[in-house]
């Protein structure tokens, strides 16, 4: 596969390490009420769609960016690639 890196352009997916569902960005707060349930759902449950999937890839043999790749899990077509840091900020994550 080829991932079109937002900064570096097309790169062979072999340079990347895959993590999985981009929802993993949304880590709950361990100090909140009901954190146990929230962490269980966050860590262990997945939508696992057959179709469009937003997922995390790490450019380990590259610039060490974490990327959010929007890819179809049936056709493997990639329609969007973003820097995970930008996605995280857009989701309101900060410090």
């Amino acid at each position: 596969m080829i991932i079109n890196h937002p900064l570096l352009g097309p790169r062979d997916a072999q340079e990347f390490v895959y993590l999985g569902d981009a929802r993993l960005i949304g880590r709950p707060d361990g100090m909140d009420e009901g954190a146990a349930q929230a962490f269980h759902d966050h860590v262990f449950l997945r939508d696992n769609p057959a179709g469009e999937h937003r997922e995390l890839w790490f450019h380990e043999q590259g610039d060490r960016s974490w990327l959010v790749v929007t890819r179809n899990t049936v056709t493997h077509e990639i329609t969007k690639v973003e820097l995970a840091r930008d996605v995280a900020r857009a989701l309101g994550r900060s410090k």
Partner: protein
Amino acid sequence: MRYSGLRVIREALTGHRGWTPVWRDPAPQASYDYVIVGGGGHGLATAYYLAKEFRQARIAVLEKGYLGGGNVGRNTTIIRSNYLLDGNEPFYEFSMKLWEGMEQDFNYNAMVSQRGIINLFHTDAARDAATRRGNAMILHGADADILDREQVRAMYPFLNFDNARFPIKGALMQRRGGTARHDAVAWGYARGADLRGVDLIQNCEVTGMRIEAGRILGVETTRGFIGAKKVGVAVAGSSSRVMAHAGMRLPIESHVLQAFVSEGLKPLIDGVMTFGAGHFYVSQSDKGGLVFGGDIDGYNSYAQRGNLPVIEDVAEGGMALMPMIGRARLLRTWGGVMDMSMDGSPIIDKTHVEGLYFNGGWCYGGFKATPASGWCFAHLLATDRPHETGTAFRFDRFMRGLAIDEKGQGPTPNLH
């Protein structure tokens, strides 16, 4: 019709006119006591044991494509019970015992062949882990041996002992491990179930579930609504898609695992072998093809096909271990969609919906688990209690901190 050598001879002499279809092709009835979703190995085994061992009737198996078209028809045919953890080993050993009597039980030759499996190790730490595992196996009533380097050399002199990046230090062996003819396993269960009145309904895809007041009433299919008292889902690879009909999110990701076969070769490798320092395992089929594989591609996929890097990675492992295969040719690659669970172990459990039961999350373990999976799922469906060897395969183990993590990789499915 009962199969036997005599029968084969009689038919041979009379132009094979007497053979009848291995299973009927029934139209779905309006309702059943049990509907098993998924006509793969696990679904067919479940129906077979429900009918045979638990004396249940009015059973249907719904298959969206053709029987045995899922992972039971696209795996590398290995059977073994060389697991480490308490939650797993009794189950896989139960499965091994079922393999050992299976063919006579369902009167179909699935070529269950216990030619032995060895897991090579290459470091002292790996040897310690193999010792721990081997002892766990024996404690659970399975067989295990530990071989030193020279014993391995005696068995497979052509392995790379003298020029290796990661020298072979020995191997954990299970002599009762081996292979089985994967398609025949599905067909044997299908035939056995059909003979016991189970309706095997092909080209019938489940498109929805009718659930009222927390209870399942049946399934919507491409061949109309089919009512059921109990619905058991065994569709590894598509688990998330099907269970979404019941509003469930699962601790499962779908990943593609590639498998490979070489051109037919005169006998080289008698048993099954796994390389401990790379992603490569291999056996040789009765037709002479080297059947081998490695790691999953590593990204979520429902595509039943993989990519080049994993093919190369597997070949590199093969050439590191046995550089004689350089001149053997890769004949065919294919891909199966795995249910990769959060701890690498399966789930056989009830759901929050009354009457809806789930069987999935088999990762690589699905084929060898087929008999026990069917038996345990049938047990759960028939009695509403888990079978004694499958008590750990629960949904709530993640909530309760009771993961069954053989590889110690944690909730990163592509590492299991």
